[in-house]
């Protein structure tokens, strides 16, 4: 993790602090309740399992095993005394009858499983071979009894399990007693460890909460930052949309709003610029138009008033006047176009049917082709929706714009190909409005001119004034739409117009 990120994680924002506080209140509240319940439950459960009653029983068990061991010892010692004090055994010994003494010992010891050997050196040595079902370890115990001057030795094999059981029971009882004595410690340890783990899990959850909340707050912060940039006039802001939640929707709405704002501002700026150029064109037309008639009349007067005989001079005069009249005519045409441009009326939207509008365009095409001398050379196809499409347009102005575009396209095809070509006019209706398109299979536009083409007085045509496309754009913008120049798939130019629909449900 980068240090900056770590610092950011350790220094939450105000929004994150609120989220953390909410998490902490919810988590700690529930954890505290759970710990109280768990603590009580663990203590109760432990006291149920470890209590004095069981401890007493265990201690009793230890005592029983001790008594059993002592009883075994007593029985063994009694047997040893019984054999040593047996009268018949003693008689046999007195008679020095070793065989009878041994027989008596065998008879006395046969029923005692623990007795393994009886020895009275040197005359008696009786062994008791035992066959146990399950051989077990035995502890050798020797009981000695005086018999006359000698010592009778009795060897016993006491099962080791008697001692082991006693020890094991004693150990268990002791540990149990300690558990009983320290039961608060044991149950407290359970609760403490549980609390520590729950606390660790709560911390982990809080950490995850911070990380998750950061995903939201980071986007909110980006939005705040972007809002400040927009406030400072930067409308190029675009906040990345990274997910599909409500915050993403908010960001998307913000981006849409900024884009609309940018388009709106561009529209206003363009219209203001066009307005300036219109004023300029009006003054220019006025200034040029006034001296044209005196110039033309003066030239004619100069030609007509010549009374000399010099034919060469007369011809030069005639040529000069012809040139002056031709240029004056060109200037008159320019003045006419400037005047038209400067007097371009404002768009007034009225309810109309797009289908009728397209029909009007389709109807005007033959005259336009004839006017341009492209009849039979360029084919203009107009296609649009079959049904009624209500729109709010200024039909006259929009038709003028479409005529301009179609005229440009036809001229481009004419200039580029002697064999002719095609111009396509299409209209489509979508959720966002109507898209009108005029494209051709002529030479097309240089991509660098896609934007400049709409600047006033920018033209690449030999006799163009550079006012056609600005007029088109002004009309489109005043409709609340937009226009873009692109490359057509057929290789020529493509002009795409987006216009909003008038129907309220589609606004």
């Amino acid at each position, binding site marked *: 993790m980068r240090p900056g990120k770590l610092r950011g994680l350790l220094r939450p924002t105000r929004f994150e602090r609120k989220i953390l506080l909410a998490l902490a209140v919810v988590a700690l509240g529930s954890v505290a309740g759970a710990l109280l319940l768990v603590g009580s439950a663990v203590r109760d459960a432990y006291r149920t399992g470890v209590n004095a009653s069981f401890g007493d029983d265990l201690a009793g068990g230890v005592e029983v095993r001790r008594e059993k061991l002592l009883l075994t010892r007593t029985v063994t010692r009694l047997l040893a005394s019984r054999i040593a004090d047996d009268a018949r055994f003693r008689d046999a010994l007195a008679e020095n009858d070793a065989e009878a003494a041994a027989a008596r010992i065998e008879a006395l010891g046969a029923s005692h499983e623990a007795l393994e050997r009886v020895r009275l050196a040197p005359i008696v040595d009786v062994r008791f071979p035992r066959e146990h079902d399950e051989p077990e370890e035995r502890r050798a115990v020797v009981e000695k009894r005086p018999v006359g001057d000698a010592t009778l030795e009795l060897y016993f094999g006491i099962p080791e399990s008697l001692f082991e059981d006693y020890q094991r029971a004693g*150990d*268990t009882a002791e540990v149990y007693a300690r558990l009983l004595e320290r039961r608060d410690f044991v149950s407290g340890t359970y609760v403490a*460890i549980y609390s520590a783990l729950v606390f660790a899990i709560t911390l982990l959850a809080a950490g995850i909460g911070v990380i998750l909340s950061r995903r939201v707050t980071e986007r909110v912060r980006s939005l705040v930052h972007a809002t400040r940039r927009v406030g400072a006039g930067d409308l190029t802001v675009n906040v990345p949309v990274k997910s599909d939640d409500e915050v993403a929707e908010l960001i998307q709405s913000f981006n849409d709003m900024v884009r609309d704002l940018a388009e709106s501002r561009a529209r206003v700026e363009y219209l203001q610029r066009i307005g300036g150029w219109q004023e300029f064109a009006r003054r220019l037309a006025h200034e040029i138009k006034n001296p044209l008639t005196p110039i033309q009349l003066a030239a004619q007067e100069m030609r007509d008033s010549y009374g000399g005989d010099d034919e060469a001079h007369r011809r030069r005069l005639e040529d000069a006047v012809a040139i002056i009249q031709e240029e004056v005519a060109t200037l008159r045409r320019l003045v006419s176009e400037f005047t038209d441009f400067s007097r371009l009326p404002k768009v007034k939207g009225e309810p109309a049917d797009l289908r009728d509008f397209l029909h009007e365009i389709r109807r005007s095409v033959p005259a336009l082709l004839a006017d341009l001398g492209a009849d039979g050379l360029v084919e203009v196809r107009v296609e649009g929706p079959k049904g009624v499409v209500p729109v709010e347009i200024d039909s006259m102005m929009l038709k003028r714009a479409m005529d301009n575009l179609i005229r440009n396209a036809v001229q481009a095809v004419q200039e580029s190909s002697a064999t002719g070509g095609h111009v396509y006019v299409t209209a489509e209706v979508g959720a966002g409005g109507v898209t009108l398109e005029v494209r051709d299979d002529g030479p097309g536009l240089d991509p660098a001119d896609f934007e400049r083409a709409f600047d006033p007085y920018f033209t690449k045509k030999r006799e163009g004034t550079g006012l056609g496309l600005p007029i088109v754009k002004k009309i489109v913008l005043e409709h609340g739409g937009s226009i873009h120049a692109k490359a057509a798939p057929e290789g020529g130019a493509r002009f795409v117009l987006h216009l909003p629909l008038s129907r309220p449900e589609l606004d």
Partner: protein
Amino acid sequence: LSRGTVALIAVLSTLCLAAAAWAGIAERPLQAQFRAGVPHVSFSARELEDPKLRRALESGLGKQLVVTVQAFPSGGEQAIASATHACRVTFDLWEEDFVVRIGNQHERLPSLDAVLSRCLEIRALPVGTADDFRPYVGKRVFFAVRAEFNPISRSRCHGLLRSPGSADPIGPVVVNIVRREICRAEKATEFRSADVEVPR
């Protein structure tokens, strides 16, 4: 927490607590004689004896008396060396005498007093080796003694207090802590010697 982590924390805690603890415990005379560079300590820990201890030792159940001696540099916390004198005492219900096992040696003692003397009155117990004390020659050290009655051995403790199944995340941790508490000595006494100089 894994068992290893718990054990490490326990060992570190014990070391720190031990080091801190020795500073505050009672000081008493303790004879320490250096022979061939090895200290041999003699002292008595008979104050561990009480009626309860006597009854327990006479019960016939095996019990433990463990005396641990550690040498520390004066003012230091890191033990130089240690020695343990551990007696397992069982009263033989059959022979009615005491069997005392020290290491691998068994001996039978006739009375409880003899047992206590044998197990709690330490005579010339060697602590560490000459190599352990060589760096401290000419310096002062002290000996700390801990005498315990009936600590349950680690293996017996594990046998009696088994961990629950591995599916339980808390149980093994708790059992480890509980074992340390439950299996420690029933009674213990601690004291330390005065500082002595390690002879050259």
